[in-house]
């Protein structure tokens, strides 16, 4: 996890905690406080985005245990075990057991990325998921871009080249 990613995560978690907690006592175990805590768990392959903003968190149910559904971005996502243990670790501050349940229902889709997630990706030079015709360079906003490869450094990204500012860039694959 990059330092920048960690800082963004901490800032968000603080904001979340202030919104969710009413006093200085132990954090109440509510859906809101759990979600706020999860905004501190960053995606290992996109460390500028939390798993919440990436749309990987499905249902969060508070009962005798905290049940968190995790939607893998890709079936073969190599980071899933890492994310799973990071979630368990982050939620350890609450007063009950944590169950993390990966599910393909509903399937993760790039449409699940939140506006905040898209903004964080854009800041890191990664374009949002769009059709080729709609693709824009995240660095100079030019539409004069060409797709170099459907496949990129991770399963969720494609490679593009901007003919205007002559820079390569990555884009999230629409799935």
């Amino acid at each position, binding site marked *: 996890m990059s330092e920048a990613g960690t800082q963004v995560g901490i800032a968000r978690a603080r904001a979340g905690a202030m919104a969710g907690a009413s006093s200085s006592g132990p954090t109440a175990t509510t859906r809101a406080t759990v979600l706020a805590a999860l905004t501190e768990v960053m995606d290992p392959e996109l460390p500028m985005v939390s798993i919440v903003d990436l749309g990987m968190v499905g249902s969060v149910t508070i009962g005798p245990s905290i049940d968190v559904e995790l939607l893998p971005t890709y079936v*073969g996502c190599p980071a899933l075990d890492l994310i799973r243990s990071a979630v368990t670790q982050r939620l350890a501050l609450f007063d009950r057991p944590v169950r993390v349940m990966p599910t393909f229902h509903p399937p993760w889709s790039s449409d699940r990325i939140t506006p905040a997630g898209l903004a964080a990706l854009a800041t890191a030079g990664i374009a949002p998921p769009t059709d080729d015709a709609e693709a824009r360079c995240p660095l100079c906003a030019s539409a004069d871009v060409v797709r170099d490869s459907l496949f990129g450094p991770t399963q969720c990204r494609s*490679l593009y080249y901007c003919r205007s500012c002559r820079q390569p860039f990555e884009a999230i694959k629409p799935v």
Partner: protein
Amino acid sequence: MTMTTLRPAIVAGLTDLIGTMADDEFVIGFSDSEWTGIAPLLEEDVAMSSLAQDELGHAAALYGLLADLTGSDADALAYDREPGAYRHARLLDHGRGDWAMTIARRYLYETADAVRLEALVDGSWAPLAELCRKLVREERYHLMHVGSWFGRLADTPGEPRDRLETALAVLAPDAGTVFTPLDGETGLIDAGILAASMSELETRWRSVIGPTFARHGLAIPPRTDRPARGRTDHGAPFDWLWGEFNTVRRSDPGAIW
């Protein structure tokens, strides 16, 4: 329909179906990974490695489902069998070959896999239907990738076209083996898990690839009737691949990563 309410005959049919799908994805994934570092273009090196990662991920999910169904272990299913016990389609048994062979094999396989997945996405057994709906989203990119290469080779006269025709001729007798009939398929169809028989799916697949072959003036592989051998007798290229993908596993059995 939950796992506990499945009749034994359905469990047997599912074991057969999911086992063959998992072996198909596992073997093509490892075959694709053979291009890592030596693909003809840097972008293709990345693409083949990413495709391999996808396919092996799909295999892991399918073996996981199979392990839940049969009370076994996904890694053991993937690695601890003798070569003769693997049930992938013979289409995947021709060794890596050249780039044209890889594209021809991937094209025939991906188009067949897409037809098979379509027959499963609306199935009545949720764990398999949900997984297949997720797989379809990823396989769309595989189809785009291999479809564009297939067209490129077919439309470039001389060596590219010649090599593609040679590869297709070698693969032709095994082209339809993804649709080798399964013992329990009638039960799966009756239970609403599988939409049509393998034979019917092969007909659908031929109607999908027919126009592409016709447009490029390529001979469509003839329908062959070799049900008994479609997923057995894998031969020397697979024995070699098996030795490769098992190297680490056998070097330290039971190791935990």
